[in-house]
């Protein structure tokens, strides 16, 4: 058999390759580069890997990228400025300059700092209560059957109630004031933390728990070393969602009636038709929301460094 092939190879012209074997023949050999298709595939893979790498670390391209990312924002501000000057819109649009002027005026009278601090305190209080309870009860429900049985059915029953629908009830219960607002924000932030913590814990690969047990870790240390760190990505998602809804419910809460806070600034500006001051408050809302998000992203970068390990050589 072998000799037969050799014989034919000798007879055929030199231009015809003697081994037109299918490429699969050599592909299992590590480092095989005999077939052009294989080398091609390899280089393709390599470039994909470099591209992945570049997304994470290319500091050289950060400059132009930052410029590109700012372009949209600059365009919007330019459009805003143009709309304000041209008056094509029937409503009153203050120009960015006018908004800035309104901001500095409000700042000089101390209205910004004072009201901002009141609002931030409300959010912080509500968030600490609601998210804290969500984290604790989500952990209990994730870890223990009894916790799940106690907390999950009631949560499922009330989770579809919109926050805004609770406003009248909370006003009756707590009156118009900080207590009602704190309760509202707590209610809103509970859900995201509870749900994500619970599912984060339930989604942990039991094989990690089993491995840790086989290395002599007791229940408490399994929770500390395996369960909670494993659920952390989910918990952080829950925190980000909770921050967003906390902000949202603050606006709802402060829209009811308040004598201090950003919502007060907003309603006050509405009464005097001061669109420039209304814009100031909106810009503050946007800026604070952005800052919170950036802060949480940084937290994720630190806390989930192991997660980012994927793709970085």
């Amino acid at each position, binding site marked *: 058999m072998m000799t037969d092939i050799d014989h034919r190879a000798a007879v055929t012209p030199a231009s015809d390759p003697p081994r037109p074997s299918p490429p699969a023949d050599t592909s299992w050999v*590590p480092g095989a580069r005999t077939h052009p298709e294989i080398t091609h595939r390899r280089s393709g893979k390599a470039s994909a890997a470099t591209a992945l790498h570049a997304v994470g670390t290319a500091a050289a391209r950060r400059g132009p990228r930052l410029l590109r990312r700012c372009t949209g924002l600059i365009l919007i501000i330019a459009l805003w400025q143009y709309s304000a000057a041209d008056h094509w819109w029937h409503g009153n649009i203050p120009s960015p300059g006018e908004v800035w002027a309104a901001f500095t005026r409000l700042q000089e009278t101390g209205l910004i700092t004072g009201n901002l601090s009141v609002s931030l305190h409300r959010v912080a209080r509500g968030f600490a209560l609601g998210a804290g309870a969500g984290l604790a009860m989500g952990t209990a429900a994730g870890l223990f059957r009894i916790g799940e049985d106690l907390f999950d059915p009631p949560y499922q029953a009330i989770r579809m109630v919109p926050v805004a629908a609770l406003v009248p009830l909370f006003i009756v219960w707590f009156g118009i004031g900080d207590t009602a607002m704190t309760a509202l924000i707590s209610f809103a932030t509970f859900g995201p933390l509870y749900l994500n913590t619970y599912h984060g814990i339930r989604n942990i690969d039991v*094989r*990690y728990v*089993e*491995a*840790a*047990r*086989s*290395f*002599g*870790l007791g229940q408490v*240390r399994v929770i500390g*070393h*395996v369960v909670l*760190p*494993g659920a*952390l990505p989910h918990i952080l998602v829950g925190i980000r969602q909770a921050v967003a809804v906390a902000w949202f419910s603050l606006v709802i809460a402060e829209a009811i009636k308040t004598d201090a806070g950003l919502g007060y600034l907003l309603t006050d500006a509405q009464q005097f038709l001061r669109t420039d001051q209304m814009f100031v408050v909106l810009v503050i809302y946007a800026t604070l929301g952005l800052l919170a998000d950036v802060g949480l992203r940084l937290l994720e970068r630190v806390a989930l*460094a*192991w*997660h980012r*390990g*994927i793709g*970085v*050589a």
Partner: protein
Amino acid sequence: MARAGRTDRGRSSAGDASRRGLRDVSVPVVRLRQVRRSFDRRTVLADLDLDVARGEFVALLGASGSGKSTLLRIVAGLDGAAEGTIEVPDRRAVVYQEHRLLPWKRVWRNVALGLPGLDRKQAALASLAEVGMLERADAWPLTLSGGEAQRAALARALVRTPELLLLDEPFAAVDALTRRKVQALVAALWQEHRPSVLLVTHDVDEALLLADRALVLDDGRIACDVLVGLPRPRDSDSRLFIELRQTLLGELGVLVPEPGASS
């Protein structure tokens, strides 16, 4: 398991042991009698008896679903529902098919997981050095290659100085070349530290390369118990090796042509 009068293998049986590959058959480290395990009335292990001697390397072969992983889990103490007499040492460690390193802990912290004392980092680093992974001690597990991860998992088992090392198809998930290297590493580490080893595998050659004894599990029983009396390091082309391979493959129900019948 409390055992009185443990032999100090450094002194009492050194001469005898070196001739017989350091096996001390008189003291079983693992002793299973009449072990049964069923899942939903399906019997996986039926009245199984097994002894593993101190320092002995036992390979457990079997087709998928033959109950070999169940047996390993029972010996590892991970299966509470098994019946029968189960005597295993307290100091035991498992290396799983998937490395099961916690992704949120750096490699050395994975190795040191659950170790007592303040010098746990030193112990972890020493163990990592033994498997050639010292320079990866601070890496995140997700950045390791398959072979590196298995070596780290080996270090995590070894750092506990186990009396019994349980290997659950630890080479199944790595590529063929890496598998050779990790197998050689396991052989070297076993000769250095001499734990009793129970290796679960479906690879007959792997069993014959590493083990003192090869068992074939079939239908919940040990169908075949073969002493592998080959000198180490083993040559997979030697006549005895090939004969043993034929025997074991036959026991596993794999039909193979007689050696020498082909070509």
